[in-house]
């Protein structure tokens, strides 16, 4: 039965694409329409994700903004950044800023000790 919120549109596809849809439908035990919808959804998700990751790096966004663009949670976005990108976009300047912050708060090193570290 066709769901009410689906709209009908017609597109031309190559033989190889049609064959792939047929094979996926058999493999997953789905109708060809269901298989096509699944593949389109997957492709759209990947497209949206890649576009969000690109924008995240290009515009130096925060993680939440990137995750919202991709339509996923912040945790999932962090995982996708490491799967598809270079991880969270922290720079050398961010490292230096951290170091400076720590040194201002605690001095150059907290303590001098001869105790063997764990």
């Amino acid at each position: 039965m066709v769901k009410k919120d689906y709209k009908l549109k017609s597109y031309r596809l190559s033989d190889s694409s049609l064959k792939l849809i047929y094979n996926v439908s058999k493999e997953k035990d789905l109708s060809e329409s269901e298989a096509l919808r699944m593949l389109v959804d997957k492709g759209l998700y990947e497209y949206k994700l890649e576009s969000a990751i690109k924008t995240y790096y290009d515009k130096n966004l925060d993680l939440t903004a990137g995750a919202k663009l991709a339509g996923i949670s912040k945790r999932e976005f962090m995982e996708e950044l490491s799967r598809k990108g270079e991880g969270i976009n922290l720079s050398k300047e961010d490292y230096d800023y951290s170091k400076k912050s720590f040194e201002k708060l605690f001095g150059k090193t907290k303590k001098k000790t001869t105790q063997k570290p764990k």
Partner: protein
Amino acid sequence: MLNNKVNAVIDSSFWINLSRVDLTKYLLDYFTIYSTIKVKEELFDFYERRGYFSKDSYLFKLYLEADFIILKDLKEITLKIKQELSKDSGELYSAALLKEIGGVFLTDDKGALNFCKNNNLFAITSVYLIVRLYKDNLISKEKAKFSIMRLKGKISNIHIQSALKDL
């Protein structure tokens, strides 16, 4: 352990990364840790979706139960903070809390770091904390190096390389 601990507001990116390398306990040597309901929600979202705790969310839960992390409700979020960070994000609520209680922002988020730079607030990333744990003789050089290497791919290479050079 230090006599005078510094207030630290922690966000989910930092907590997830530091949990990944099993070094969260050392935070207690330096900081009184605060967090927000929003950050808790971001971490517990894993449980909501999958029905079991990830390592970081489970640790967060334990720290909360032991009162090692103090959750604070916010009195207000100023317009200035709202303009600089994403609406309804853990970073936004954490930044507002930091403004309220003072201290340092423990974050691995670029937006949060930029916010701190623009507002002359202290901010520390998980990668630098690992270097510091070694320099303060709390962990060995090998452990520090291994922990930093484990964050490779999770955090951009240039940040990781800066830490490795600093060891």
